[in-house]
């Protein structure tokens, strides 16, 4: 297991490595259009962000909607009617993935489905554009990385900040300093203050269960998560308020902010080793209040989340930017002599070139880990030590139960 993980890390660290396997679309075959025409595209999860996620996926690609899926019949039917009445409607993603006309899949379900559907899509030979956050818990991310390495499919997380960041000269310089390892120990601190929608995506405990409408397949909606009595807030944007499906504003907004920061600070292939939160006891079902979380990497570099919506502000360390001036003149010369990092490929470029996209699985997984680690520290109320290679907490078996959360049968990673 350990050696496999190392192998995978190594493989995915080469983010622009090309695939040898071309998509069925290019190969052609029965029911397939030639490469000069269009990609068959599909959307799974047609509510909320769904249509926007689909448009992000097909941007700059010759694609047409051939299928869509949602556990709510009226929603998928409505989307297809608006977008392409000839496309096929499904309520079960497994049936959609059997469709040989589908080459590309946009996933915009609630996050408790992101990993399983991404993996299943890769297994069916499709490329994936997946809405953020990538996962609901840490082990899911590792499984997605392994599946996309195994199947050589393209994966892009649905947040674009890292593309802009990678074009900034300052960010590229910081990236090079961090990747060089010359600033070690690293005294720098990046603080994200506010913007994590703490109050907006805090849940309401004790809501009365209702009978779900016949339009909704509640069992399939819950999927790998516990099958609990239906409560209106568990469906729609407020799904974010439940640990069963997402993880509050932390997971909703966190990947937007920390995904580009993770690239800038050269942490796409690792995770923090120490995590501490200031928060009151978390509720078992719904997300709630927290003040701050401090996450420190093995070189000393620190990310801080300061909710600015509850409790005392973070005051343990001051913000400190990484810069060339922190290095000796000789080391500065080494940085200046380093080549710039490879440009990040968009999903469209990655699909056409059969190379890995800028928001590839390992990077997206590590960015999601920042959020999951923060939420686990909030939920457990204790300082945690984490091994980024084993992807396990150190000396805390019960904390590890939050790393790989058992799924409901028949779902598994």
């Amino acid at each position, binding site marked *: 297991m350990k050696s*496999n993980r190392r192998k995978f890390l190594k493989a995915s660290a080469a983010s622009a490595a090309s695939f*040898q*396997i071309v*998509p*069925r679309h290019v*190969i*052609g*075959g*029965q*029911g*397939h259009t030639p490469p000069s025409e269009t990609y068959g595209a599909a959307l799974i999860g047609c509510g909320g962000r769904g249509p926007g996620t689909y448009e992000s996926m097909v941007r700059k690609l010759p694609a047409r909607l051939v299928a869509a899926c949602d556990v709510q019949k009226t929603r998928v039917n409505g989307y297809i009617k608006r977008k392409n009445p000839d496309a096929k409607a499904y309520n079960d993603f*497994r*049936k959609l*993935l*059997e469709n*040989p006309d589908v080459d590309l899949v946009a996933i915009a379900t609630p996050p408790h489905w992101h990993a399983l559907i991404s993996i299943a899509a890769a*297994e*069916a*030979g499709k490329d994936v554009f997946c809405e953020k956050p990538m996962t609901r818990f840490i082990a899911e991310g590792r499984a997605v990385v392994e*599946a996309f390495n*195994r*199947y*050589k499919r393209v994966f892009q997380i649905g947040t674009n900040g890292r593309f802009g960041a990678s074009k900034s000269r300052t960010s590229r310089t910081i990236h090079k300093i961090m990747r060089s390892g010359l600033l070690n120990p690293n005294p720098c601190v990046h603080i994200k203050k506010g913007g994590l929608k703490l*109050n907006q995506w*805090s*849940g*309401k*405990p004790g*809501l*009365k*269960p209702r009978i779900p409408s016949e339009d909704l397949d509640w069992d399939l909606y819950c999927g790998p998560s*516990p099958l*609990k*009595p239906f409560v209106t807030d568990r469906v729609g944007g407020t799904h974010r308020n439940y640990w069963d499906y997402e993880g509050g504003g932390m997971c909703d907004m966190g990947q937007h902010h920390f995904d580009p920061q993770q690239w800038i600070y050269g942490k796409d292939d690792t995770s923090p080793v120490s995590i501490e939160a*200031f*928060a*009151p*006891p*978390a*509720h*078992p*079902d*719904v997300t*709630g*209040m927290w003040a701050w979380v401090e996450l420190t990497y093995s070189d000393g570099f620190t990310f801080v989340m300061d909710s600015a919506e*509850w409790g005392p502000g973070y005051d343990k360390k001051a913000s400190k930017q990484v810069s060339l001036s922190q290095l000796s003149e000789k080391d500065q010369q080494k940085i200046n002599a380093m080549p710039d990092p490879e440009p990040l490929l968009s999903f469209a470029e990655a699909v056409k070139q059969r190379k890995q996209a800028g928001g590839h699985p390992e990077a997206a997984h590590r960015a999601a880990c920042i959020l999951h680690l923060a939420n686990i520290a909030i*939920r*457990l*109320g*204790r300082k945690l030590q984490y091994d980024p290679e084993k992807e396990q907490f150190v000396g*805390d078996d*019960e904390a590890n*139960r939050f790393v790989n*959360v*058992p*799924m*409901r*049968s*028949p779902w*598994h990673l």
Partner: protein
Amino acid sequence: MDIKPYLDSFPLPAKRGILSDVNKEETDKTIIEVMKAPDKVALQLVDRLIDPGAQGNDIQARHLLHAMAVRIPDYDRREGPGLRSKFCLALAKTLSDKRPDRVKAFIIRQLQLCGGEEVISKIGEFLTVPGIADDAAQALIAIGKNSAGQFRNAVPMVRNDPSLYSNALHGLAQLADDSSKDIFIEALKDDNDESRLLGLWGLTQLADVSTLPLFLESELKEKGYSRIKSASYCLQFAEKINKIDAIKIYQHLIKTRTLPDEKYLREIAESALK
């Protein structure tokens, strides 16, 4: 012991129904106090739990019980062993009482977070109870490999209930239970797609090469999504075993995935043979 002051230190829904009026200092003090007699507090808290939707309010009781469940392992490590198991045994004992299923499910979910060997057999009893069996299964999986015996014991009792049977197979496969080889093989003959796939997954988890001929013969019978999934199990099986046997799997895929839409699978297998 009067637990009302402890409960009152935990928040009730405030504006917009969320728990924003929470005082960390007070809740932290409460947790220190309740950890002095976690078993006694647990019993009182459980008595306050109500069926979701029933008249009343158990928001604070659920919140405090959960806070104890997630924090007690650390107290146990810091302040001497015994606290955690005392708490868990007290919770497990309440599962024998007459309570609504969803209350029992909530208690089991707390044991999922902190339970150990001491609660395995009590939770295992629920693997045969529709409506709670999946909560019990996930708790046992979280507790770990030693709970596999509970799933094995449940299999003959749930054999005729597709949902409970699938739940038990899933647990054994997830735990990669070495003693369940025959159970997985038996599942390959089931009429239910889900059970057959779980049987294939179980054998993949074990990666016992003696099962390979049967595994390959069985996986070939799957259609549609199950065929996609069984090809994935083939690849995962191959990654876990010696090169000579892995080659048999890759050759099997090249020979059997002959549809135009399966070319990507042939290519993966061919690439693995290089």
